[in-house]
């Protein structure tokens, strides 16, 4: 069994050392070269065609995808045996970040390489893999994922599309309509979900050319207008039996199996988009003169730029830490082994909590950055003359697709509980009991360490206890009704998001320090982020407690929470943010480690 630093959800229970996490500063020069190649393609071929892409100029996106395929940009995650580059997850994540500098193209690309292609890699038969994957890697075929229906979005298992075995026994006949299918306008094959005999939820590989397959008109979307979103209409669609993907009745494995990676990749894309927006906002703030000087000189603009940079640093730390974890579980799977699919599934199922956290955090950071990009542009930001408006429109979908942020918030606690029940999260019960025992002991408050990173380290340990205490009590007190009391679950989810991000930031900055790199700006961002995250965790935990406890019980729990969220140090976020903003203004980009 491979060694895993942290199993899924274990970040809540255990401490890790900076050396055990992956950070962007760990990339090799070859990784950076691969990323640069991706970025040059997007800047040279995709971004200059923004207007034509947004108008869905005939054939353009497909041409760009094929060109990307020639350059190897569709095969980062695929094994060499199937025409891919078999890169580590860390590297393929960096490539995904760079591929996301034009949002519509990023969505077309992401749907193809992610939810379009991966189901075949993870669940296909050797024949299906050999038949489809090399052509998908080259861009000869473009893929799409058709799960949602008009009345089935967040609840995919309620699908009405049916599959019946044709009298010849060689085909399934699929009937129904899929909605919101990304790439539908130009996809050559669809991963379609339908219920065999109206009951057994099953995945199929459906080629566009099969009789009975057609697509509807383009949806008029708010943003990512250059991506294709259409219905897929299945009217007695003839799908050969050998195109059943995975087992009959096990379609939910496929549907949920690739969503984890999809959610994770969405965060990487959000990171790329956020960095681009920050650069655009910064340049505008330096150009725009008001009161006889650039608006970049003003404190409230500096505040925005610094906060955008800080959120981006947090997202980046979180994305690549998780990429490193995913790499641990995916690394070394032999794609040709007889049990390869089982290994892929096991790997994919390790981090649903972290992937849900990233999906929510990534999309909300991007939304914040996009919103402030418009705000910095003032009235001009509200016109289509400036790119800010497009960034804002394009951002919004990220909180909706790949599972709404509401669904993903609910998933976090649900998955933690499931993992605990299945024995995949050892130590959860013990940790909860240890906290209970600790709370029964009187404790003299100790002053926080003077070193800011040490102080934050203490807050992280305490935040974990505060969350475990709150979640544990919620489960105990509310019991099975917790499923219905979604507001409490969402408070706990926000605690988990802030904790995971806060710890990732802290670990990265310490790793930078251990590497002897200049941490002036990272430390400032870590302090701004961690103190506010700690406050946020306390507020959400407090509100969760108020939602399910009352009277003496509430008072006891609030006192316990106070014990874990007390702090004696404070930071001057104004001064720190001005320091961060000056860096951003000088470099016109988010922070990155300097030259060697």
């Amino acid at each position, binding site marked *: 069994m491979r060694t895993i630093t942290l199993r899924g959800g274990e970040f809540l229970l255990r401490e890790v050392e900076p050396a055990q996490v992956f950070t962007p500063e760990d990339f090799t*020069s070859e990784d950076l070269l691969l990323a640069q*190649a991706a970025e040059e393609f997007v800047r040279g071929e995709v971004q200059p065609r923004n207007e034509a892409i947004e108008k869905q100029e005939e054939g353009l996106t497909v041409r760009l995808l094929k060109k990307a395929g020639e350059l190897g940009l569709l095969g980062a995650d695929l094994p060499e045996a199937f025409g891919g*580059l078999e890169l580590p997850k860390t590297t393929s994540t960096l490539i995904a970040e760079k591929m996301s500098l034009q949002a519509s193209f990023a969505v077309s690309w992401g749907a193809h390489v992610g939810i379009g292609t991966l189901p075949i890699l993870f669940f296909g038969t050797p024949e299906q893999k050999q038949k489809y994957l090399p052509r998908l890697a080259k861009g000869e075929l473009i893929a799409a994922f058709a799960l949602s229906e008009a009345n089935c979005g967040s609840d995919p298992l309620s699908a009405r599309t049916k599959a019946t075995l044709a009298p010849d026994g060689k085909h399934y006949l699929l009937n129904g309509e899929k909605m919101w299918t990304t790439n539908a306008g130009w996809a050559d094959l669809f991963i379609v979900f339908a219920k065999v005999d109206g009951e057994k939820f099953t995945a199929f590989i459906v080629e566009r050319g099969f009789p009975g397959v057609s697509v509807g008109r383009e949806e008029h979307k708010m943003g990512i207008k250059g991506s294709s979103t259409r219905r897929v209409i299945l009217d007695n669609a003839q799908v050969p039996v050998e195109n059943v993907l995975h087992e009959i009745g096990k379609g939910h494995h496929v549907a949920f199996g690739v969503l984890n990676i999809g959610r994770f990749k969405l965060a990487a894309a959000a990171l790329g988009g956020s960095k681009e927006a920050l650069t655009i906002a910064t340049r505008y703030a330096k150009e725009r003169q008001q009161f006889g000087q650039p608006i970049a000189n003003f404190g409230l603009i500096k505040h925005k730029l610094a906060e955008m940079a800080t959120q981006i640093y947090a997202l980046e730390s979180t994305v690549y830490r998780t990429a490193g974890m995913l790499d641990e579980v995916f690394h070394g799977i032999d794609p040709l082994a007889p049990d390869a699919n089982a290994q892929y599934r096991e790997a994919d199922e390790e981090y649903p909590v972290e992937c849900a956290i990233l999906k929510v955090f990534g999309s909300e950071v991007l939304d914040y950055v996009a919103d402030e990009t418009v705000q910095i542009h003032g009235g001009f930001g509200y016109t289509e003359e400036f790119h800010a408006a497009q960034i804002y429109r394009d951002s919004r979908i990220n909180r909706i697709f790949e599972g709404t942020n509401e669904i993903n918030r609910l998933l976090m606690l649900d998955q933690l509980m499931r993992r605990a029940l299945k024995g995949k999260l050892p130590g959860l019960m013990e940790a909860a009991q240890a906290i209970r025992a600790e709370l029964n002991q009187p404790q003299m408050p100790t002053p926080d360490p003077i070193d800011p990173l040490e102080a934050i380290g203490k807050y992280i340990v305490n935040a974990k206890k505060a969350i475990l205490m709150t979640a544990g009590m919620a489960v105990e007190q509310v019991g099975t009704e917790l499923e219905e009391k979604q507001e409490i679950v969402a408070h706990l989810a926000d605690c988990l998001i802030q904790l995971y991000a806060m710890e990732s930031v802290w670990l990265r900055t310490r790793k930078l320090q251990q590497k002897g790199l200049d941490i002036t700006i990272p430390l400032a961002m870590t302090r701004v982020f961690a103190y506010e995250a700690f406050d946020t965790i306390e507020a959400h935990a407090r509100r969760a407690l108020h939602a399910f406890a009352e009277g003496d019980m509430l008072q006891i729990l609030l006192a316990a929470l106070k014990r874990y969220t007390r702090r004696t140090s404070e930071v001057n976020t104004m001064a720190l943010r001005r320091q961060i903003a000056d860096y951003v203004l000088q470099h016109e980009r988010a922070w990155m480690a300097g030259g060697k």
Partner: protein
Amino acid sequence: MKILVTVKRVPDPYAKVVPNTAGTDIAREGLQWAINPFDEIALEEAIRIKEAGKANEIVAVSIGGDECQEQLRTALAMGADRAVLIQITEWLDPTSIAHVLTRIYQREQPQLILMGKQAIDTDDNQVGQMLAALLDLPQATFASKIHIENGTATVERETDAGIETIRVPLPAIITADLRLNQPRYVALTGIVRARSKPLEVLPLAELGIAPQVRVRLLAVERPPARQAGKRVADVRELVRLLKEEARVI
């Protein structure tokens, strides 16, 4: 035919370059680096000549510190077959670089040396010409079109007077101008393939040469800030100012 291509590491052409605080050099902290764009064009041309079946080996050479391996890896990813890094610890002037390249020429015996017409960092535009003189080889500078046939190169070069076409017997030195070609995107597949291509690192001393550097860099400073414009009341005042202050008429 073997082609030797020079690859110089320079600050990314889109990077904002500023002097360091001491004014002794540019500030290198946090800068992005790239292959000199003219060298990249030269490399692209070499790859196209090879793809046309007129060459069988491309050797990329760089002179600099270990960090130049990054640019050589890019050259290998684009399509060079081998790379050689001549390690230096002290900055060398164009004459010295030309002298070092004579040794590479003797070692590799290429039939064609393709170089950028100049590097975008110092904009000297000297090494190609100097190398031709030192080796006593024909040169064709500022090439905007190259045709190789039967041991000769027909080269179009852009001059102020128009396009000049010259023919040089090989071996020769050709320097690339901007419009020679548009370099390809580096393919990820190429980068992965480059892992197994040889990259040789040679300390300068091993070439048996100790160049005499005769040019010294004295200072790096910002260009003077442009002064704010002035509004004049009428033509009479304009003419007076042009005469008395600007002294241009």
